[in-house]
């Protein structure tokens, strides 16, 4: 008598194989093809529309790009000349808001993920940061005007504009820093603490370097956002026409997005200003693109520095 055991081979006849309906297999395959076709179509559409925008701006704006366009202030009631003050202004605002938002944002992110006890307070702060990220930028502008321009009497200035833009960038920086840190497994924290490292040493020497590539992505995203915003600087910094380059933090300045708005909607001769508008848009896009490239190489640099291969 054969004793039953799970390993004993069973005769094939007793195997209970279900009879799969043959039409079902081809139906499955057809559904899959349709779904994937849709996915492909949609991703293609996204890529195409992006290329469309870029192409449009490049075609329209490329002809005005010249050395003079980049190095001269606007002339003749903004119908000719260059956009140097706007370029310089935008770079100043980006640098200023970065100086404000990066350290504070990164430190807040570290605090929220590494130090704060997981509880109501952290949940509240996180909720507020998320809400902050959703506030329309014009509201930031209004708040910046009330606080920085009037109450702290910085006046319409690069300082007030940078701080307002910094506020806008802050939630992005905090959230990405926090998420980046959260993804580092606790095994690394424990490994470091178990060697007698303090919490600060652990964060500085092990956790932060590991999170750095992703933190930088967040920083760049926020810079991209800052460089393109018009509303927050509308009442806090931006000058309609100011050919002179800014000399101090308390000067007003021109900025690319605002200049773009101005030359396309108001001025002495909209017809003549139009190429300038496209040129301005192109320069703005190029700046953002350059920053992204810089970010990529920074990310690579930090990824190589933490040796995972």
């Amino acid at each position, binding site marked *: 008598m054969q004793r039953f055991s799970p390993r004993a081979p069973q005769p094939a006849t007793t195997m209970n194989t279900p009879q799969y309906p043959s039409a079902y297999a081809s139906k499955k395959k057809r559904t899959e093809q349709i779904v994937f076709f849709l996915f492909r179509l949609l991703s293609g559409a996204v890529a195409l529309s992006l290329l469309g925008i870029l192409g449009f701006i490049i075609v329209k704006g490329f002809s005005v790009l010249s050395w003079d366009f980049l190095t001269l202030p606007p002339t003749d009631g903004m119908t000719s000349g260059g956009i140097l003050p706007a370029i310089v202004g935008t770079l100043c605002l980006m640098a200023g808001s970065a100086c404000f938002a990066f350290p504070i944002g990164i430190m807040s992110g570290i605090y929220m993920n590494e130090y704060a006890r997981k509880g109501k307070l952290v949940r509240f702060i996180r909720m507020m940061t998320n809400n902050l990220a959703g506030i329309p930028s014009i509201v930031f502008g209004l708040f910046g005007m009330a606080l920085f321009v009037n109450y702290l009497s910085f006046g319409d200035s690069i300082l007030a504009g940078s701080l307002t833009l910094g506020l806008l960038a802050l939630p992005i920086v905090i959230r990405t820093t926090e998420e980046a840190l959260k993804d580092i497994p606790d095994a690394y924290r424990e490994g*470091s*603490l*178990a*060697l*007698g490292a303090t919490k600060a040493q652990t964060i500085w*020497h092990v956790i932060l370097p590991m999170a750095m590539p992703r933190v930088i992505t967040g920083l760049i995203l926020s810079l991209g956002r800052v460089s393109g915003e018009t509303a927050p600087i509308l009442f806090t910094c931006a000058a309609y026409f100011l050919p002179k380059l800014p000399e101090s933090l308390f000067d007003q300045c021109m900025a690319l997005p605002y200049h773009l708005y101005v030359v396309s909607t108001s001025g002495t001769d909209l017809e003549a200003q139009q190429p300038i508008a496209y040129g301005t848009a192109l320069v703005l896009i190029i700046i953002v693109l350059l920053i992204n490239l810089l970010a990529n190489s920074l990310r690579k640099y930090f990824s190589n520095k933490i040796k*995972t291969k």
Partner: protein
Amino acid sequence: MSKLDVKNVNFYYGDFHALKNIDMQVEEKNVVAFIGPSGCGKSTFLRLLNRMNDLIPGARLTGEIRIDGENIYDRSVRIDNLRKNVGMVFQRPNPFPKSIFENVAYGLRVNGIKDKDFIESRVEETLRGAALWDEVKDKLKKSAFALSGGQQQRLCIARAMAVSPSILLMDEPASALDPISTGKVEELICDLSNKTTIIIVTHNMQQAARVSSKTAFFYMGELIEFNDTKRLFTNPEKQTTQNYITGRFG
């Protein structure tokens, strides 16, 4: 004076009573194994000895744990100094994403040692001690992640030994390794036992029998039996121990 002296320790995760009235004395330069079924509290107890459980919110301890006579839960104790003295090796190898050299040097650096020559000689010495030197001496600058799992675990042991701890805690150090790597780690444990006191948590009773001189059996948060390894496996005092080591449960 015992190296480790545990008196009447109770430990809670929130409402859960994880360890009940633990008493234990461990003498210096011994290898002690903790065995018991999953969830019996052996790892929890191990992690009390270098205060790793401090990181868990809602954890609470009563009783005393003394190392070299000093209560490690005393307010005056600096946790980083304690952890330097009581090293730990984890279940999964967790080298840092740094070079092999920097992994071993890390413990020295965070404890304030800057002398380059000293660090270099210490790294070589510990890697030799962990029987890893010959395998890695030509690629010290390479990432620790390029090593095999078993090599990574021995690197972690070297990393822990670099700061010369007087107690080394090992939390199932071989459970993620293949049999050959496990054998190497066990050999290493025997080698290290003349330098430091080793406490090892293991699921593998043969491993406990091979490496340890004393064994503690935990069950449901209680220390059921703590005895010479030979005695515990051949002639246990308690019925529960007998049941566990003969495989009747767990």
